[in-house]
């Protein structure tokens, strides 16, 4: 039996095991390909767009992810009940759990992604390093798996400081600690292990050389069941805060055609080393000398995939679906040409003026930016509640330009047009970044946001206008109220009640 008989078949109905913007993204791609969609939702997501835009929708439990979006049995059961023949996991939640991909296969469902084997190998950072190194992929020097604290303390000087303590099962910066001198190592081992254990149920950690002034650059790869591979060029993802990417762009300022070809070839070798199928991303650290080292492979579609779509024209999610249906890649490497420049800003519900603390609340108003060169991928709407249950990403704003400059100017325009009210967002952070000389000149590394970027020098040019507008609204409220309250009885303590009246009367 060939591999594609096992893991792919033509399907006409697909379950999306996710929520938010990525669920919308997958539903839209299915819609465009004529595939029926089944949404699953937790109790707090009944009104979410992915539920409303799917053809069918099933409740899978309470808000906490482990009782709903991480509940493998429940999701497989819904797939069977609804007649879905395939499952797309999106990113996050179950996307990189080999057990979930296996459960899909065991239930006779197509898993839109790589094999459980590829997920497992790449999900274990040390095994991934070993595997790709054997395939000739350059890796960052570091320790082997399974060392105890004593051995790690001993190994550290050989790797050299600064170094990173990393969790084998980690991701998104969790379970990772930078250590600048031997004295800080014991504490870092403790806290990284604790965080990894809490987050992933696996406290295995290891050490790795820290590349200073490094850029985080990743390569998008696609593979099909016939062993064909292509890469779609790189994404520059160095602008991060606490290892959370904030702004991504394609192409990268520092990658030229030759380097792109080299990184692409290496990325394909990494994918081939695990028989990779579907869309995946090979992340590299790039040092000052433009040497690149394998960091990890993300075995799923990335949050930032749209920037690659805009500069290559390839619809990555549609391509995932085609491959999962047993078709060959639509493109050969020669078909892939980069054109123009794309930038993505992740719009998070967080306060950029207060340590980027998450902002909880109900979104009251959303006005999308639109017009030339602007794409918005979002899963929120007026009335949507930002809860502590899920991550704070509420939207992705992606702008395209013929040149990087044009893309930046368009992003500035789109950020200004985007109105989200009810929670604080990091839009001012993005605006400040788009205005910064360091960003404009492309000279930044992975530490730039945390170490050399501050919101405190951002001017607030419209404070006067804000004062006037608030005063006018307050005044109007008072005026309207005075029509129903006798003048003598009116005092400021009435205002709160008047506000309710005002809302009623709109």
């Amino acid at each position, binding site marked *: 039996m060939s591999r594609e008989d096992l893991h792919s078949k033509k399907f006409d109905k697909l379950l999306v095991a996710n929520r938010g913007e990525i669920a919308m993204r997958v539903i839209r791609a299915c819609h465009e390909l004529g595939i029926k969609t089944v949404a699953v939702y937790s109790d707090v997501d009944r009104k979410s767009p992915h539920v409303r835009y799917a053809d069918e929708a099933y409740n899978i439990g309470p808000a906490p992810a482990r009782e709903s979006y991480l509940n493998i049995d429940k999701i497989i059961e819904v797939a069977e009940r609804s007649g879905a023949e395939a499952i797309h996991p999106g990113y996050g939640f179950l996307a990189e759990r080999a057990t979930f991909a296996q459960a899909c296969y065991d239930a006779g469902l197509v898993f839109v992604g790589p094999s459980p084997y590829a997920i497992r190998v790449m999900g274990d950072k040390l095994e991934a390093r070993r595997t790709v190194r054997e395939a000739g992929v350059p890796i960052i020097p570091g320790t082997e798996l399974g060392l105890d604290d004593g051995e790690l303390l001993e190994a550290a000087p050989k790797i050299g400081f600064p170094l990173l303590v990393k969790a084998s099962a980690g991701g998104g910066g969790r379970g990772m600690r930078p250590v600048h001198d031997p004295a800080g190592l014991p504490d870092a081992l403790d806290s990284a292990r604790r965080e990894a254990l809490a987050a992933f149920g696996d406290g295995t950690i290891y050490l790795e050389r820290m590349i200073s002034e490094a850029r985080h650059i990743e390569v998008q790869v696609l593979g099909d069941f016939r062993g064909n591979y292509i890469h779609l060029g790189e994404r520059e993802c160095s602008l991060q805060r606490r290892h959370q990417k904030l702004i991504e762009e394609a192409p990268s300022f520092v990658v030229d055609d030759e380097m792109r070809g080299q990184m692409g070839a290496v990325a394909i070798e990494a994918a081939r080393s695990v028989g990779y199928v579907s869309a995946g991303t090979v992340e590299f650290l790039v040092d000052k000398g433009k040497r690149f080292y394998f960091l990890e492979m993300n075995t799923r579609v990335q949050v930032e995939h749209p920037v690659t779509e805009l500069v290559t024209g390839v619809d990555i999610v549609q391509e995932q679906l085609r491959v999962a249906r047993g078709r060959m890649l639509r493109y050969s490497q020669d078909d892939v040409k980069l054109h123009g420049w794309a930038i993505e800003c992740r719009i998070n519900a967080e306060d950029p003026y207060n340590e980027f603390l998450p902002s909880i609340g109900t979104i009251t108003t959303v006005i999308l930016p639109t017009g030339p060169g602007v794409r918005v991928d979002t899963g929120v709407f007026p009335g949507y509640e930002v809860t502590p249950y899920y991550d704070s990403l509420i939207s992705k704003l992606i702008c395209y330009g013929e040149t990087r400059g044009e893309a930046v100017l368009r992003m500035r325009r789109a950020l200004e047009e985007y109105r989200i009210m009810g929670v604080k967002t990091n839009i001012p952070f993005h605006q400040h970044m788009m205005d910064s000389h360091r960003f404009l000149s492309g000279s930044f590394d992975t530490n730039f946001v945390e170490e050399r970027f501050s919101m405190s020098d951002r001017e607030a040019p419209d404070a*006067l206008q804000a004062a006037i507008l608030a005063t006018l609204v307050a005044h109007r409220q008072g005026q309207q109220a005075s029509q129903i309250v006798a003048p003598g009885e009116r005092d400021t303590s009435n205002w709160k009640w008047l506000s309710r009246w005002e809302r009623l009367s709109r």
Partner: protein
Amino acid sequence: MKYISTVKGEKYVIDIDQEGRITVDEQTYEIDVQFLSDSGVLSLLLDKHSIEAIVEERDDTWEVLIHGELYTVLVQDERAFRLEKEQGTSFDVSGDAIVKSPMPGLIIDILVEAGQSVEQGEKVVILESMKMENELRSSRDGVVAHVYVSPGASVEKGQALVAISSPPSDQS
């Protein structure tokens, strides 16, 4: 009618005298303000300069979104402003600065204890929320007057976590 409106620490004396005119700190502007139905969106022409904004009332202040930036404005009429001034700046009943939880979450760690000195910006509490560990910091130099919660506690948004009094040297 006269108002005192405060935004980003700046006070503006705003006089809405009649239809189409407004005086701010003694400078007069021609204004035209339009409310878009239902949406909370306003269009202001201020001496022909166009500003689109969303204005919503929240916790006794006004939130104003302009060009991506969110401004929190306190609007007081003259009487309310005088009243507050007479009472002095209300900080807290005891004069302590209170570190509050900015969102619902789980207390991971309390990094200070009562009686300890802290500096402005020093981490005092680690709160887990939305899958992230968040560090809450002191808003001033001072001494920890009280710790209201323990590690492992679930807290609500706005809940008081730690009280910080002004440092001994500052006390009169």
